[in-house]
C-alpha cells in the first residue's frame, strides 16, 4: 500500500507535509507508510509566491529532501518524472491512495483511465481556477467503481484539449493560465486531505465531488451517480 502524490506545485506542495503527518499519526491499518512523490518539473523563483519550495531543483527531489528528516517513520521516494503512459503502471498500482494535484486534463484523463483498470484504488483529484475549484473522488473496490471516474460529467477530462507535460516537445511552451492564488491552492489541498482522512476513518465518503468558491464562501458536496 502506498500513497502517491502526483504534482508538487501550488496544490501538491501544500498537501505533502500534512499528508505525511496524517499518515504517520493515523492509527488506521490502511494508512500507508510509503509515499511516492512524483513531478517532472523544477521549482522556479516565481513559484515562491505560492509554493513551498526552498531550493530551485526538481520538485519531487526537493520535497523529499525537505520532508524526509521530518518524518523518519515514512519511506519517501522521489520520482522526478511526469506521469505518462509508459511509466504509469509503475507509479500507480492496486491498493494505492493517489492524490492528483496536476494542472492539466490530459494527465487527469490518463490517471483516471489507468485507475479504471485496477481492482482497488482510491483517487482524489483537485484543481482550481483563480477563486474556485473542485475535488473529485474516484474509488475502485474489488474491480468495481464505487464512485464515477474523473471523466464522468466532465467532457473536458474525457477529451482533453491540453497536453500532458511529458508529451510536450522540447522547448514547447505551456499556455499561461489564469492568475493563481495561494489561498485557493491551500483550500484545494485541505479539501483533498479532508476527503482522505474521512475515507480512512469511515471507509466511504458521502460525496464524490466537492466545489468551493472563495468569493461567495460557498462549499457544495455532490454525490455523482
Amino acid at each position, binding site marked *: 500500500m502506498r500513497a502517491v502524490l502526483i504534482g508538487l506545485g501550488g496544490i501538491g506542495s501544500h498537501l505533502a507535509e500534512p499528508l505525511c503527518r496524517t499518515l504517520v499519526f493515523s492509527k488506521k491499518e490502511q494508512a500507508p507508510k510509503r509515499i511516492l512523490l512524483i513531478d517532472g518539473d523544477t521549482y522556479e523563483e516565481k513559484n515562491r509566491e505560492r509554493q513551498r519550495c526552498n531550493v530551485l531543483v526538481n520538485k519531487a527531489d526537493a520535497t523529499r529532501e525537505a520532508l524526509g528528516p521530518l518524518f523518519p517513520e515514512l519511506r519517501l521516494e522521489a520520482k522526478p518524472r511526469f506521469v505518462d503512459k509508459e511509466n504509469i503502471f509503475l507509479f500507480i498500482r492496486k491498493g494505492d491512495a493517489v492524490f492528483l494535484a496536476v494542472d492539466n*486534463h490530459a494527465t*487527469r484523463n490518463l490517471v483516471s483511465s489507468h485507475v479504471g483498470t485496477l481492482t482497488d484504488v482510491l483517487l482524489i483529484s483537485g484543481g482550481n481556477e483563480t477563486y474556485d475549484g473542485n475535488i473529485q473522488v474516484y474509488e475502485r473496490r474489488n474491480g468495481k467503481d464505487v464512485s464515477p471516474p474523473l471523466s464522468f460529467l*466532465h467532457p473536458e477530462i474525457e477529451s482533453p484539449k491540453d497536453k500532458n507535460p511529458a508529451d510536450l516537445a522540447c522547448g514547447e511552451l505551456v499556455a499561461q*493560465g489564469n492568475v493563481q492564488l495561494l489561498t485557493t491552492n491551500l483550500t484545494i489541498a485541505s479539501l483533498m486531505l479532508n476527503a482522505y482522512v474521512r475515507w480512512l476513518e469511515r471507509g466511504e465518503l458521502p460525496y464524490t465531488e466537492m466545489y468551493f468558491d472563495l468569493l461567495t464562501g460557498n462549499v457544495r458536496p455532490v454525490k455523482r451517480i
Partner: protein
Amino acid sequence: MDEREQKLSTTVIGENIVDNPDQLRAAIVEKQLTVYCGANVQRLDNVAGMTVGTLRGRMREILNITRDHQMVRVNGAEVGNDFVLKGTEEVEFIKPAGEKGSALR
C-alpha cells in the same frame, strides 16, 4: 378545517401556514427552480416555460456560467439548451474541473 384553524390560517402560496419553519422553507423551495453551478446555488420563481439556454443567459453573471459549462443536468438527466423547464426542477450547469494554468517554461 375548523373555525379556529380558519381564523389562524394565513394563506402562503395558496396553502395554509406551516408551523414548522423548515417545513415552510421546504414548501417554498418545492415551488421554485433550483439552479446550481459549482459551489453556488440560486432559487428562482416563475420560470415555467423557460428553456435551459435562456436560463443559462439569465444566470451567466450571477452563477459565473461560462461557455465551458457545456453539460447541463435537469433532475439528474442530461439535457440540451432547448429543454423547456417546468419551473420546479433542479438544474445543474456542471462546472468543469479546475485547471490551474501552468507557468511558461
